[in-house]
């Protein structure tokens, strides 16, 4: 048992050393551009842990720690304050700009939801990297569903460590208001996302 622990530790350290080489190589291979600077090459604990193929599970204990700390850091709105305006949410879902060095930092960021997800069933230009969210509103608006959806948007790793979905809230990509608008786009029965559902 002790041998396995030592071996695991050695593997993690070697991996860390090799990974540091990668970070160093990338840093020396990149240049600041407009407002995008080399600090973005620095990875946090989650990114470092998740820098692996999807098939690789990684250490369970670390995964659990990361999941718990992700969940603990999510600021959940007060009951009744989860939903914004679905029309603004639709715009956020369609907008693929924000935080690229070619973008205007004065403009709000988009969520680019359609890059990966199907949403409005009438919108054919959708990606398949994530599951379809068409008819998401069928799940209803119980407090637990509202909280689940909010937490998922804020930091998906609270549920699914090493998911490839961005941390829209935790990473400061979308504002609280934008997230509430996206919530409405998903959950409002009048949202086009839910147009196929029987009212």
């Amino acid at each position, binding site marked *: 048992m002790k041998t396995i622990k030592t071996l695991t530790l050695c593997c993690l350290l070697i991996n860390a050393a090799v990974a540091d080489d990668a970070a160093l190589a990338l840093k020396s291979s990149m240049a600041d551009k407009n407002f995008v600077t080399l600090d973005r090459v620095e990875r946090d604990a989650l990114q470092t842990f998740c820098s692996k193929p*999807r098939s690789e599970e990684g250490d369970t204990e670390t995964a659990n720690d990361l999941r718990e700390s992700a969940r603990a850091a999510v600021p959940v709105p007060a009951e009744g304050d989860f939903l914004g305006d679905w029309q603004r949410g639709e715009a956020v879902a369609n907008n693929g700009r924000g935080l690229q060095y*070619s973008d205007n930092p004065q403009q709000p960021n988009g969520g680019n939801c359609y890059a990966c997800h199907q949403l409005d069933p009438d919108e054919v230009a959708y990606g398949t990297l994530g599951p379809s969210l068409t008819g998401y509103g069928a799940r209803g608006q119980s407090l637990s569903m509202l909280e689940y959806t909010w937490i998922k948007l804020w930091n998906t790793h609270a549920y699914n460590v090493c998911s490839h979905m961005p941390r829209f809230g935790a990473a400061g990509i979308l504002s609280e208001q934008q997230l509430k608008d996206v919530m409405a786009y998903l959950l409002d029965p009048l949202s086009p996302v839910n147009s196929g559902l029987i009212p």
Partner: protein
Amino acid sequence: MISRCAAMLSSLLLLLAPLWSWAQQDGIFDEYRAMFGDDNPAVFVIDEGEELWFNEAGPKSMTLEGCDLGLGAGVVEGAYAQLPRYFADTDRVQDIESRLEHCMIELQGKTREEIHAKPYSLRGDLGTEMEALVAWLAEQSRGLAIAPGQAHPSERSSYELGEQLFYFRAGPHDFSCATCHGQSGKRIRLQSLPDLTAHEGAADAYSSWPAYRISQGIVRTMGWRMRDCFRQQRMPELIMGSEAAVALQTYLAVNAAGATMAAPGLKR
């Protein structure tokens, strides 16, 4: 009972039909490509690249005919297909762009600054020298097997570094190359995404770049494509011919090894 089931089934199929055709997006572009036949607007850029190779330039007023791309000075046929590879004179693994940079500096006396000032076209530009040279050189490898060097230890560590970088999650969106290119059968909006970790996907990608990008009206190189990927990943600017750029191309080329070069290709 049966006729009602049949009615429901046929209306379900009718509903699914448009979804089916959208899922075949790639097929549509293949048809478009087939209409071109052997034609490719890249022919003009290829001609320019050839002119540039034989053109006296830089303070030393020299052509690039003395440039060694791995098969000997001035040997261009098949050179692109065997990159990236280790070069003893620079003691590093190099891709086509870093090798051209080296030759421009050594043979022609150009400076690193001027070569890096604007190697890739910006929106509305009509093409750069680097893009034209890479287009012509890729054409000289058309029909040949992709065969990057892997005999030298530096070449193997370049592959390993490339693999590490492929899975490197970073930036505000936590994207790595693998986010989009780490699995098969997926697309982003309507653009299908090759699985670059597997031979088939890597071969599709590596064999078709550089390519005439119809939407931009110019030839784009693999080096540019990677720079633009990093931009979209919300990362800083990838330096042309840098260690990471070479390592990632090594990773792709090795995964694609054996497939046939078909560049410059034609893309949307």
